[in-house]
């Protein structure tokens, strides 16, 4: 590969890729996103390579490992091109059949198709499946067409054309203006208008200026930044280079959390390939603009997603935030003007430059434009990543895209915004996905985790979970956060252990107010949200714990008891064998077992292993 030195070179190179691909060889695309890997995709990849060799098809069939298309629940996913056939739950033993039947003869393997759990209908193509139908996948759509480690795949789909347009047809000011007019707001949680941030950084005095892509996705339950950086790293990189051009920066960073080794690897490879072809480095595409990027790995600290803490960590210091009376766009990294954007925000930029601000702000609501990727997880049927236009209701996301609640249980709440957000109850499911509407409901957009909770989820436990998380992750610099969260967690411990007092609720509210007013950074000021929102919508659960010493959802150990439902138990001994404390006694075949409450440690394994639902909780 030679360096591309002009616009003509770029188009010539793009044409040569298209020419090479004209032949249209069949291609087996295997998802190697984290979800599919967890379900055994590595084995499928190896088996496919072996089988292709065994059948001597190496010259005739392509194998591609792609990023995450989002339908993790159905993994491992395999797509056969050119017919676009989607196979789900693929196992190693299916590989030979897929190759000989589908790839060679174009026949469909029926049992591997996605089957709608409610109607039983089978679907051949991704686009027909209800999970994908209401989505608008501007950012995620290409993940299943691209091998993230092959820049040619990205170029074949028009990649880096937005960069070329920005560099050759637009001034930096015009680029910023376009992004401003598009209404793009930060996808990392804050929702600050991206174009305005760029403008402030551009106008701030001081050189050099830095641009940083934030892939420190610390929000538990969210993984869209991971999917983008792993699956389509060049789209993030292209957005970052355009941001640098608009701001007048020549040095950039991608800050990736260390828990995402594949994202680090793919981004590193993407940078190398982009450098080789001249999309990064000196005199990019012959435009005279210089820009270099390096990757920094985080160290596993939630607070490092906060801009000032992230920049401290980039300087090799501990990730403590500072008060932001001086904004980072004026004095950030090494005290120089620095612009930090979330990965998903940046991935939107090439689309806006290519298709124009008017196209982009035609999607969404008055105050929130474009699409948003959510990680739809928890007690919902179709878990995975979903990209929906802003303005869609939560109900549509959970029921139409997500396919409703698992195992026919009753919906209780949906948690958005991670540890800084809150739980939204059933009665408010018709509010639209919109930065301002979610804030009004006492939650927030956050980075886009959407955790669905059913009747078996205890809201006091959920609040305690978030506070335990935040207590661990508090950097300890300011007192309200360090001490306040700890005290609140202790109060919730008491409540879940049956030691709650009537005044506890009031005390929780008072500490929450103090935190909100006095903590140093946004992590502290929003830390009480999970408590406040659960108190607002699920106060009865708190009261049940405090007054009746009862956990209605059957979660809080000190307040529950496991018991054998005699009518359902057939004495199969599964639970007896699994019980770690020998609390279960076998009474003979076809007779219910007996559970000794004095020995039971409430680990719940008996309930897990029972295939007949004969273990209950009260």
């Amino acid at each position, binding site marked *: 590969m030679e360096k591309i030195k002009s616009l003509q070179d770029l188009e010539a190179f793009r044409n040569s890729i298209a020419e090479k691909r004209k032949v249209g060889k069949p291609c087996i695309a295997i998802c190697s996103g*984290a*979800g599919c*890997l*967890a*379900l055994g995709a590595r084995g499928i990849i190896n088996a496919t390579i072996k089988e292709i060799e065994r059948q001597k098809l190496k010259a005739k069939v392509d194998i591609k490992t792609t990023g995450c298309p989002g339908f*993790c*629940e159905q*993994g491992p996913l395999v797509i056969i091109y050119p017919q676009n056939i989607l196979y789900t739950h693929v196992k190693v033993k299916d590989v030979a059949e897929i190759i000989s039947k589908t790839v060679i003869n174009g026949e469909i393997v029926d049992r591997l198709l996605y089957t709608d759990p409610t109607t039983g209908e089978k679907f051949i193509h991704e686009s027909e499946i209800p999970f994908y139908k209401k989505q608008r996948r501007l950012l995620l759509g290409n993940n299943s067409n691209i091998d993230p480690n092959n820049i040619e795949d990205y170029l074949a789909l028009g990649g880096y054309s937005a960069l070329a347009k920005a560099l050759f047809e637009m001034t930096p000011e015009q680029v910023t203006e376009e992004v401003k007019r598009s209404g793009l707001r930060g996808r990392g949680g804050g929702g600050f208008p991206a174009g305005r941030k760029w403008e402030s950084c551009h106008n701030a005095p001081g050189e050099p200026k830095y641009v940083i892509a934030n892939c420190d*996705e*610390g*929000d*538990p*339950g*969210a*993984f869209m930044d*991971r999917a983008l950086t792993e699956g389509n790293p060049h789209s993030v990189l292209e957005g970052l280079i355009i941001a640098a051009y608009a701001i007048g920066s020549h040095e950039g960073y991608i800050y990736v959390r*260390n*828990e*995402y*080794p594949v994202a680090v690897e793919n981004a590193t490879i993407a940078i190398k390939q982009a450098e080789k072809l001249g999309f990064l480095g000196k005199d990019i595409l012959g435009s005279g603009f210089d820009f270099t990027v390096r990757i*920094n*790995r*985080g*160290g*596993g*600290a*939630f607070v490092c997603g906060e801009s000032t803490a992230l920049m401290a*960590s*980039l*300087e*090799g*210091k*501990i*990730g403590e935030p500072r008060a932001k009376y001086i904004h980072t766009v004026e004095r950030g990294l090494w005290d120089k003007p620095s612009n930090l954007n979330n990965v998903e925000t940046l991935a939107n930029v090439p689309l806006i430059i290519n298709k124009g601000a008017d196209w982009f702000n035609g999607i969404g609501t008055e105050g929130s434009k474009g699409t948003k990727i959510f*990680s*739809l*997880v*928890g*007690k919902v049927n179709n*878990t*995975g*990543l979903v990209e929906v236009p802003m303005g869609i209701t939560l109900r549509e996301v959970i029921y139409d895209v997500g396919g409703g609640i698992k195992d026919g249980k009753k919906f209780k709440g949906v*948690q958005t915004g*991670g540890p800084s957000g809150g739980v939204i109850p059933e009665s408010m499911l018709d509010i639209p996905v919109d930065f301002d509407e979610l804030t009004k409901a006492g939650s927030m957009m956050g980075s886009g*985790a959407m*955790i669905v*909770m059913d009747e078996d*989820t205890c809201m006091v436990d*959920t609040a305690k*979970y978030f506070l335990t*998380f935040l207590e*661990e*992750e508090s950097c300890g610099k300011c007192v309200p956060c360090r001490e306040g969260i700890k005290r609140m967690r202790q109060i919730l411990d008491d409540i879940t252990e049956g030691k709650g007092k009537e005044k506890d609720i009031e005390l929780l509210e008072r500490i929450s107010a103090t935190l909100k007013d006095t903590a140093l950074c946004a992590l502290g000021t929003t830390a009480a949200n999970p408590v406040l929102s659960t108190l607002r919508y699920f106060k009865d659960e708190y009261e049940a714990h405090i007054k009746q010493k009862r956990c209605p959802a059957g979660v809080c150990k000190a307040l529950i008891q496991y018991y054998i439902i005699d009518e359902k138990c057939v004495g199969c001994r599964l639970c007896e064998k*699994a019980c*770690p404390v020998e609390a279960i006694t076998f009474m003979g075949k076809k007779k219910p077992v007996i559970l000794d409450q004095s020995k039971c440690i409430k*680990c*719940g*394994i008996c309930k*897990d*292993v029972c295939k007949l639902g004969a273990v209950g909780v009260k």
Partner: protein
Amino acid sequence: MDKKVTAIIDKYDADRGQLISMLQDIQAEFHYLPREALIQVSETMGIPLSKVYSVATFFKAFSLKPRGRHLINVCLGTACHVRGASKVLEQIERSLDISRGETTNDFKFTLETVNCMGCCALGPVVNIDGEYFGQISAGKVDSILNKYS
């Protein structure tokens, strides 16, 4: 040890901004951050040892204690939590007779927790030496641990 550490420092041109990456590489090499390595980083780069120590103890990814041959990471992210991750963790603790953050006496396993691995759709998730196990329950723990002998 000093040669390996020198090579890692050189790889990052002794750039102070890359301190966290260096410590990560040192940890990948030795499975923890040995005291001597931290001293060497401090002396070579001219950063006070107290500063290196503060970084090494601030971030969750670092360990100052030697770790076992197999590193178990139990994800306690929200999605895993609502699907019963704490029961999975407790079962591992019982099976190995250690608490989170500890290493078994034979240095076979170290048990740690992480606040999200980004495999949220498949919770609860456990990662052992980089390999992911999705949709597990307390009942499946022992059969997974038995694979590592």
